[in-house]
């Protein structure tokens, strides 16, 4: 049992409140991603779990045991850092071995001469070398072991950092943006490798990232954080399709979800820009609503006449990505541009400057109230 339980954790740096009563339960062997923009407190939360920062209040338990009074090394968690934090003066092998050396040997067994002279120290060193070799083989970095970090590429350093975390079989892996220093191509490959590593090890992973693609592709659950709070914690598909909060909907997905202001009509129907959507909500008439829909949940047609449930505007920009066509429309009355994804085959239909009608798929439209809370259609 090595789930991680975070209870009402608060943290402030000076006057800045970085975490506001964060509560989160991460199951045993779950892959949990903390997703949010920079400055949302996700890295601080990870450091509090590791014991590198002390929370102002609240508590952390690992495997059911409170760890608040324990030092980082006593918590039995391993961490992979964004900068990898490899010791620059040690070889890859020494880097990987260090956590084992520190755990298994006594101070005198690490002293310069005794380290080689004492039979016990030599036995420990031999055992450790064996384990380092096994982990290195598992990550395909056996041939790099004698190199110093400065002689390794970014991807190789990242693997050495992973190996250093794996070697002591911790109860939980904490990863702080471990892929953000890799180039785009390597990042996709490493994403798959980490997900596979998680399946193989069956250990709890807490993974911090600002990259939604990483969060969506690797996680069992994603906790979306903003301004020191967890807005929603759910499986990736739920986060995307069924966001609990407008800020979650806006943060997840690319291009950004389209949002237009609407209002509740006299019979509870949703009205936008003078048209009515085939949706009703249980809210008082004239309540303001944010009506949101994703780029792929709408259709665009050249505008000939006023149509029911449609938004009218002018095409300002097109992006043909080969597989898809993105169309950016400036609605009337003017507000933020709306993005719609179409099949690339429709390139010839939709041109810049054309007047078009956008028709959101009413079944996929998301409604939010003024505070950003979700409003469900009746």
């Amino acid at each position, binding site marked *: 049992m090595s789930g991680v339980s975070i209870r009402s954790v608060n943290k402030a740096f000076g006057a800045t409140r970085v975490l506001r009563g964060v509560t989160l339960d991460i199951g045993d062997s779950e892959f949990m991603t903390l997703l949010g923009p920079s400055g949302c407190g996700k890295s601080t939360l990870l450091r509090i779990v590791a*014991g590198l920062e002390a929370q102002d209040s609240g508590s952390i338990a690992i495997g059911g045991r409170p760890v608040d009074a324990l030092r980082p090394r006593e918590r039995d968690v*391993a*961490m992979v850092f964004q900068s990898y934090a490899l*010791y620059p003066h040690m070889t890859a092998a020494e880097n990987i071995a260090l956590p084992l050396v*520190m755990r298994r040997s006594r101070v005198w067994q690490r002293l310069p001469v005794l380290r080689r002279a004492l039979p016990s120290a030599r036995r420990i060193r031999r055992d450790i070398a064996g384990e380092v070799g096994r982990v290195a083989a598992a990550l395909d970095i056996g041939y790099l072991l004698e190199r110093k970090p400065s002689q390794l590429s970014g991807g190789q350093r990242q693997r050495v950092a992973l190996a250093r975390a794996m070697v002591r079989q911790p109860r939980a892996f904490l990863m702080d943006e471990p892929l953000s220093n890799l180039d785009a191509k390597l990042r996709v490959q490493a994403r798959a490798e980490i997900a596979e590593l998680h399946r193989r090890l069956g250990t709890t992973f807490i993974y911090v990232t600002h990259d939604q693609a990483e969060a969506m592709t690797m996680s069992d659950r994603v906790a979306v954080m903003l301004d020191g709070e967890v807005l929603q914690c759910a499986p990736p598909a739920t986060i995307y399709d069924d966001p609990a909060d407008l800020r979650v909907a806006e943060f997840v997905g690319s291009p950004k979800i389209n949002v237009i202001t609407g209002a509740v009509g006299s019979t509870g129907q949703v009205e936008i820009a003078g048209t009515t959507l085939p949706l009703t909500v249980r809210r008082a008439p004239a309540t303001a609503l944010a009506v949101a829909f994703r780029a792929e949940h709408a259709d665009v047609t050249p505008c000939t006449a006023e149509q029911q449930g449609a938004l009218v505007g002018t095409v300002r920009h097109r992006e043909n990505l080969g597989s898809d066509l993105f169309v950016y429309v400036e609605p009337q009355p003017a507000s933020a541009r709306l993005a719609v994804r179409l099949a690339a085959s429709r390139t010839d239909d939709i041109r810049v400057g054309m007047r078009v009608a956008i028709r959101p798929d009413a079944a996929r439209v998301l409604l939010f109230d003024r505070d950003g809370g979700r409003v469900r259609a009746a």
Partner: protein
Amino acid sequence: MTAPRGLPFAILRHVLLGIGAVFMLAPFVWMLSLSLKPADEIFTTDLRLLPQRWDAVRNYSEAFRKVPLHRYLLNGAIVTATIFSLQVLVALPAAYALAKLRFGLAKPLFALVLFGLLIPGHVPAIPHYIMLSSAGLLDSYAALVFPSMISVFGIFWIRQFFKTVPDDLIHAARLDGLSEFAIVWRIMLPTAAPALVAFGIVSVVFHWNDYFWPLLVVTSPDMAMPALGTVYLRNTEAGTDYGPLMAGTVIITAPLVIAFLVAQRRFIEGMTLTGIKG
């Protein structure tokens, strides 16, 4: 500077720099030259670089006979090495605490360090002398080392370096099971190697060449540091036999000059730090 300039400028540049270089190097060349010459060739008005009759063996052996030059070199090595080791031993943990740890007195302590940077080493000399004299320690290695056991500049400089070490490296070490003490010696010490080399050059060059403090506390001929030893050698020479004196100065200056020529870049980097030290 971009515009290519013609041959006349290149010649002018070498002429000007060459004249200057002659002036800068003349004492060294002259010192070497005199250390090879017999007395009668030194006391002559014709300029010659190389002696007509080589007298190097006599000059150098005479220098060692007059004063214990080897002792001065040994004293220099022992004292500068001890001073540097103690300075690192004291400064490294403090610099780490000041750069990376949170504690209530961090700011006042750093303010004291900055204040200490303002004080030239000559200022506390009289109280130091009184302290050592009342402890009966004058004329000993302890007296030579004592005022320099702590280098405020060392603390400041290593702290500035540690500020540039990413926190993640220390976090990783804590998770890997290192105590704060182990972090200082196993992680920060090797990481600080370049900064320590620069600081070591400053420290060793300064104390090898220091004259003021040894002059105050050393009384017996055997305890002199290299600079003071040169003066002892000079004082044995009441007359005009400059050959052995120059041989002695060659011996005293050689270690640092050779070290400089071997590791020019590091020396220049290191010595520019004295700009901060003042």
